[in-house]
């Protein structure tokens, strides 16, 4: 039985080259793992985590369930390409095994089986194999057709933006598109020449005259082999490297590998993460800054730049760090962290000296129930601070306003800029100051501070955002309000919502004084106000574009007041909004029976001003 023909060479050489390059690259990345991480791999290998990882590979790398959940059509496209191809490879191997009775037949024999064995009618169950293989091929072809449509008309796949690829990635993409139509053609021509074939190849084969098919059969197999070879050769250098890398990453995650600090896109876990990005573009549509800036800095582009090793210096500083892409990434790449690490590399020369910071060496201070921390942005919103204080007084809670006189920044802005060391010093000083009060709870009005207090400070007392604390006071009946007919739109601050998963308490507070509106982008999907401290180099103009878009979403149903829970968001939205923007503490205080008349007049005034404008 002949199992060789020169046309298999392009495929086989490409395939071998891919294996060698992959092996070398992975070996280099594996060398970057620390000793502890290597131990974790060795231990994890023989636990149930490995089995769970295999299950996850099936669900994510083949079926793409996460993408399916966010966008069924897009998920179906990825699934039919990946799972269909997997079925083709698996089916081809089983079929060739069945044909020869030898499992160890050459790789190319299984791939180009239809050329070597055009007629299989002499075998039992040959129809089952044929049907299975051609069904898988049809599945992949549907995927390719969808992928092609995606490039022509995005709206059919229910997306607004698709990733723009560079030259290398485009070449790999075109090679991938060609593989399966060529396979169909080659198999159909062989069917036309020698008979046999399943429902797909036989139907196409009927259209091809036999004499022509016998003559030109080989050309199609050559072309199919070339497209495969080119794709495999391009794979380790293009975004398609994500196909094998994502699978390895799933195993590494299951084995609980700890990420190393610092920016090392060619070492250890970070290398696997960065190269797992398929550039699928799910992060594009959700980004609040998409099409609002001169340079596209979205994660799909940013990760690609990190991989290439240039261009990321500019884009990493632009991102607002709102966390939206991190939330939806189907591969689960830790994009926020990657940005911080990149910034720590870019600004590694920046030096800070905060030896001037006030307050230290306090062993005892007057005890109180609540320590109130309003943060830097609280200073720009004295009304919010005043409202919170009034509310605490109304509820009869004893409190101390910690940073009324001297305030130290919580350290998160420093952290977002990649200067973790300097941030740590500020955090230590703040921790000393907070714990010196021996209070029962720390309440902060700023979500930026809230997130870092909760995640990094390791305080011994509970940390609450003022929305949580106010809701508790309302729930306990210490603050009583009547529900009015006010239409209220709530803006989820990034650091409170996605950052700290605090969605309900502010909504409950707002719902207790008015009618909370449902928005098209809320909770996990809420937009950034446009001034997140994450962004370093976004220009004023670009920020304003983002804010305008966010306001459009917020004011779609003509709310009386836009409510937020972040002094930064409030200040930013206020600048451009026609509708009154307020913090929920102010809302709660101004709906107090003694103030409500004044409040309704304020709303009337802002409405009048909006009409005049």
């Amino acid at each position, binding site marked *: 039985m002949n199992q060789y023909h020169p046309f298999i060479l392009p495929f086989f050489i490409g395939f071998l080259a891919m294996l060698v390059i992959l092996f070398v690259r992975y070996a280099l990345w594996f060398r970057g793992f620390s000793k502890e991480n290597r131990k974790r791999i060795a231990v994890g290998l023989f636990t149930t985590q490995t089995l769970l990882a295999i299950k996850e590979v099936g669900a994510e790398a083949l079926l793409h369930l996460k993408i399916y959940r966010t966008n069924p059509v897009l998920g179906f496209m990825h699934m039919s390409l990946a799972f269909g191809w997997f079925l083709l490879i698996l089916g081809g191997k089983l079929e060739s095994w069945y044909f020869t009775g030898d499992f160890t037949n050459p790789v190319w024999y299984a791939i180009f089986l239809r050329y070597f064995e055009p007629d299989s009618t002499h075998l039992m169950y040959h129809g089952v194999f044929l049907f299975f293989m051609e069904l898988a091929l049809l599945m992949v072809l549907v995927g390719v057709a969808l992928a092609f449509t995606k490039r022509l008309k995005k709206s059919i796949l229910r997306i607004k933006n698709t990733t723009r690829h560079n030259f290398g990635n485009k070449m790999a993409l075109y090679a991938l598109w060609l593989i399966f139509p060529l396979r169909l053609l080659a198999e159909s021509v062989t069917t036309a020449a020698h008979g046999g074939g399943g429902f797909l190849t036989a139907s196409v084969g009927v259209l091809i005259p036999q004499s022509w098919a016998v003559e030109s059969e080989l050309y199609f197999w050559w072309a199919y082999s070339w497209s495969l070879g080119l794709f495999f050769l391009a794979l380790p250098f293009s975004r398609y490297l994500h196909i094998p890398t994502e699978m390895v990453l799933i195993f590494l995650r299951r084995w609980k590998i700890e990420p190393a600090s610092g920016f090392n896109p060619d070492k250890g876990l970070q290398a696997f993460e960065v190269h797992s990005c398929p550039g699928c573009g799910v992060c594009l549509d959700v980004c609040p800054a998409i099409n609002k800036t001169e340079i596209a800095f979205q994660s799909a582009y940013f990760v690609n730049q990190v991989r290439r090793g240039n261009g990321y210096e500019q884009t990493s*500083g632009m991102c607002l760090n709102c966390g939206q892409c991190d939330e939806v990434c189907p591969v689960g790449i830790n994009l926020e962290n990657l940005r911080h690490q990149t910034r720590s590399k870019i*600004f590694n020369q920046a030096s*800070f000296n*905060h030896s001037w910071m006030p307050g230290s060496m306090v062993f005892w201070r007057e005890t109180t129930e609540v320590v109130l921390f309003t943060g830097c942005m609280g200073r720009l919103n004295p009304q919010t601070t005043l409202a919170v204080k009034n509310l605490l007084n109304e509820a009869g809670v004893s409190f101390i306003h910690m940073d009324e006189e001297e305030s130290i*920044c919580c350290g998160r802005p*420093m952290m977002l800029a990649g200067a973790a060391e300097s941030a740590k010093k500020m955090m230590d000083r703040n921790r000393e100051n907070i714990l010196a009060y021996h209070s029962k709870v720390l309440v902060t009005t700023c979500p930026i501070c809230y997130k870092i207090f909760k995640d990094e400070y390791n305080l011994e007392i509970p940390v609450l955002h003022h929305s949580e604390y106010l809701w508790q006071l309302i729930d306990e009946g210490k603050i009583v309000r009547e529900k009015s007919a006010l239409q209220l739109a709530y803006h989820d601050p990034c650091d409170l919502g996605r950052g700290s998963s605090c969605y309900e308490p502010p909504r409950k507070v707002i719902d207790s004084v008015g009618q909370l509106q449902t928005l098209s982008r809320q909770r996990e999907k809420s937009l950034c106000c446009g*001034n997140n401290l994450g962004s370093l*180099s976004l220009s*004023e*103009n670009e920020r304003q574009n983002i804010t305008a878009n966010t306001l459009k979403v917020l004011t779609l149903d003509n709310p009386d007041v836009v409510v937020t829970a972040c002094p930064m968001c409030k200040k930013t939205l206020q600048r451009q909004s026609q509708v009154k923007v307020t913090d929920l503490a102010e809302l709660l205080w101004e709906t107090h029976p003694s103030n409500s008349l004044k409040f309704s007049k304020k709303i009337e005034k802002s409405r009048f001003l909006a009409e005049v404008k």
Partner: protein
Amino acid sequence: MAGTKFGFFDANVRSINLDVETPETIEGVLHREPSLLKCIGCGNCAAMCTAGHFTDLRFYRLNLYLKRGLVNEIRKEAQNCMLCGKCQLTCPRGVNIRHAILLMSSIRP
């Protein structure tokens, strides 16, 4: 040294030679943060600044230093910043102050 006489004093005589004061570094900062050129020196940033309450940090002044090539003064003052961003919210010209401070404190002599 400047000496005090009759209620006023002479400033030190300073000549600024931009060829000596590494204009590439300065141009690099201005290139990476062009919004610095929009600064009108109104002083809002300094009025807001917590670090400026305790130290000499005045951002509008840093910007002037930058254009005069006073690299040492910049390094000395910029390192006090906490990057909290209050200044940026009050800036009427939309200068990316936090980014500028990061770039300024990265300047090496």
